[in-house]
Structures are given as C-alpha cells and as structure tokens.
C-alpha cells in the first residue's frame, strides 16, 4: 500500500509543537533544579547516624525507584487531591511527581559519589586533625562532585524523555501537543514521526554531551 505523505501539516503546526518543546524543557529544568537540592537532603539523611532518618530516606528512595513513574504521576494527580483536599494544577502535579521521582534517583547517585571516596582518605584527614565538617568540605565533596556529574547528566537525558509521561495528565508538553495536533489534522503518521524525530534531535546531542562528561571526569585511582 502506497501512503501519500503530507509533510505540510508538520510545518503548519510547528508553532504548537515548539510551544510543547518549551514546556518539556521547562518541566525538565524545574524538576532537575528541585531534585538536585532535595536529592542531597535525602542522601545526607540516608548517610546520617540517626536511625529513623536513615530508614525514612531508605523507604523514600526505594519506593520511588521501584514503582513506575506513570503510577506516581497518576497518583499525585488523582489520589493526592482527594487525600489532602489540595488541588494542584496539572503542571504543578506533574512537576511534583517527576521531581519526587528524580529526587530518589539523585539521592542514590549522591550517596554512591560520597561513599566512593575511600575511607582511608577520611581517616587520614581526621588523623591529621581536621574536623568532620572540614573533611567533608575539603576532602570528600570535591571528589564526590566530579564523580556525580556524569550520572547526573544521564539522569537529565532520561528526565527529558520521561516528561512525555506527563501527557497522560494533559500537561501541555511536546507529547501532549502532538496528540492534539494528530487528532486535529487526522495525520498521526506525519505528526508522531515528526515528534520522534524532534525528541531524537534534542536528546541525542545531549547524550553525546553526557558521554563526553564520562570521559572528562573519569576516576583515576
């Protein structure tokens, strides 16, 4: 069967798709910013000497890492308002779900980064008379940060793609806009192909950048 491609619809609806891209970038950037800070708090809680705090952080990371993001998004959007009486906008609910999910992953990355700095260094620093906060600031964190940057990059690329799940609760990001246009124009083949190409063109260079980061910050011991 010969299909008559009709690429004009893509050009006609490009402004709508570009608005979608903008929202995809906005949700991704906002969620990343929140998770970078919140993830550090969870990681420190996970490593703290306080037992209850440690367990709470463990339960949080395991729960968010072991259940699907789709489920979390739907839970925050449909169940949370009934439970709390607080109605969140689609954008707020989506950002809350995605950033909570990302926080759990970043917490594990931070924790791995911190614990990867060998114990011997910590003990040596303590032995020469540094205080614990000094050891953290001068010895552990500078090394941990360089180890954490490449996986943070990977998480960013995943996040960028995962925000497409927010189309399910009608957050007007790229995937949702695509569905609207596809239904509107009766041209799903052209539109969905265009959207796949757009995601590819946006995400692939990012993943090349991440590969560069892995090479740049390779740990040599």
């Amino acid at each position, binding site marked *: 069967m010969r*299909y008559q491609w009709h690429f004009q619809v893509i050009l006609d609806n490009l402004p709508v798709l570009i608005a979608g891209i903008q929202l995809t970038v906005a949700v991704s950037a906002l969620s990343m910013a929140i998770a970078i800070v919140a993830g550090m708090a969870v990681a420190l809680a996970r490593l703290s000497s306080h037992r209850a705090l440690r367990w709470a952080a463990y339960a949080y990371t395991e729960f968010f890492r072991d259940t*699907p993001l789709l489920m979390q998004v739907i839970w925050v959007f449909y*169940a949370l308002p009934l439970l709390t009486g607080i109605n969140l906008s689609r954008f707020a609910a989506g950002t809350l779900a995605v950033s909570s999910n990302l926080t759990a992953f970043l917490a594990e990355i931070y924790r791995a980064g911190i614990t990867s700095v060998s114990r011997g260094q910590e003990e040596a620093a303590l032995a020469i008379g540094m205080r614990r906060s000094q050891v953290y600031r001068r010895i552990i964190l500078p090394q941990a940060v360089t180890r954490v940057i490449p996986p943070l990059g990977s998480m960013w690329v995943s996040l960028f793609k995962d925000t497409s799940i927010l189309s399910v609760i009608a957050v007007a990001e790229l995937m949702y806009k695509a569905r609207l246009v596809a239904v509107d124009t009766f041209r799903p083949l052209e539109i969905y192909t265009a959207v796949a190409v757009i995601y590819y063109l946006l995400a692939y260079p990012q993943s090349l950048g991440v590969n560069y980061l892995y090479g740049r910050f390779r740990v040599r011991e």
Partner: protein
Amino acid sequence: MTLAAIYSWHFQAVWNNLPFLLLGVKTTLLVTALSLVFGLAVGLVAALLRLAPWRAANLLAAFYIDLFRSTPLLAQLVWAFFALPILTGHSLPPLAAGTGVLSLYVGAYLAEIYRAGILSVSAGQRHAALAIGMTGAQVMRRIILPQAVVRMLPPMASTLISLVKDSSLVSIISVAELMFNAQSLSAVTLRPVEVLTAVGGLYFFLTYPFSLIAAFLHRRYLAV
C-alpha cells in the same frame, strides 16, 4: 471545605476486585518476560554488529541503539500503535505492539550493557590468548565471556527493574496490564486513592526483590 484532613480509607473496593488486579499483574509479568527474552536476543545481535569489523553493520547497530535510547518509550509506543498501521495498512494487536516496542527499547539498552561488558575485558588478555594459539571463538568463549558476563549481571538486574516499571506504559495503548486495570478499576469504583495506592504496593512487591538482587550483584561483582 478546603482541607479534608482525615480521609476515610475504604480498601474494600480493592479487596473485592483483587482478582482483577492480579490479572493485570499476570499480564505485566508476561509483557516483561517476553520483552526481556526478545530484548536479550536483539541486544546481543546489536552489540555484536556494533563490535563487528564491518563498518555498515557498526553504523546500522549504532543507529538502532541511539534511536531507541534517545526517544521516549511513550513516543515509540504511540508511533507503533497509531502511526505504523497507517504506513503498513495492518494494525497490530495492542499486546503485540506493546511487547514488540518494549523488546526493541530494552534491546537497545541491553546492547550497550553487552558491549560495555565485552570491552571491559582488557585487550591485553585477548592478545595473550590469541598469541598462545586460541582461535577467535575460543578467546570469546573461554577468556572474554566468563569475565564479561559477571560484569553484565548488575546492570542487567537494574534494567529488569526498569523494564517492569516501563511496562506500565503499554497501558496507554490499552494493553490490560496492571496499570491499565488499575485505571479501569479506579474509574469504576470511584476509589482512586485506595486503588492507586494498592497498585503502588503491588509494583513495589514485584520490583523490590529485584532491587535487593541488583544491590547484591553490584556489591558482589562491581565493588572496587
């Protein structure tokens, strides 16, 4: 009323419909298992082509891997289910479309795991084995794979966890797995809080053992 401070939970709705949710669990496990098996095969072929001394094969495999890793799974599913049939004139049943896409998707990730595992065995060992007279196949079987497989296990366990979770996305193309049944049930019973919370518990129950296994494998085989 703005704050419903105390929500009265009614898990009866979940309890009465547990068989329906468990049916969803069964389909989730089926989709996951099929995608894993196909993905392992596709990924291995892609990894070998990517490493083969044949430029066209390298490029083709790299394109497949990058394409599936650089686009959202949701976009791939929607494309296969809503766009592909227009091109081919044949529509796919949801389960076939969902499993097919998920297999190709996870195959791309597994290909990179295979490749990283194979490349992690130092070239010196390969040269040494060739120098003492082993054939290429023997080097692969006796020297490289035994070491590579052990290094592939931890990331593969992580990939399996992701796969169980990602399989929830096939609900969008109406495959009646756990997430799909959960949404039907919460619409019918008007108890989204209980149903979705219970389903969260079910997913956790499915993936947490793998999470423990993955953590163990990481400690056992990747600890420096």
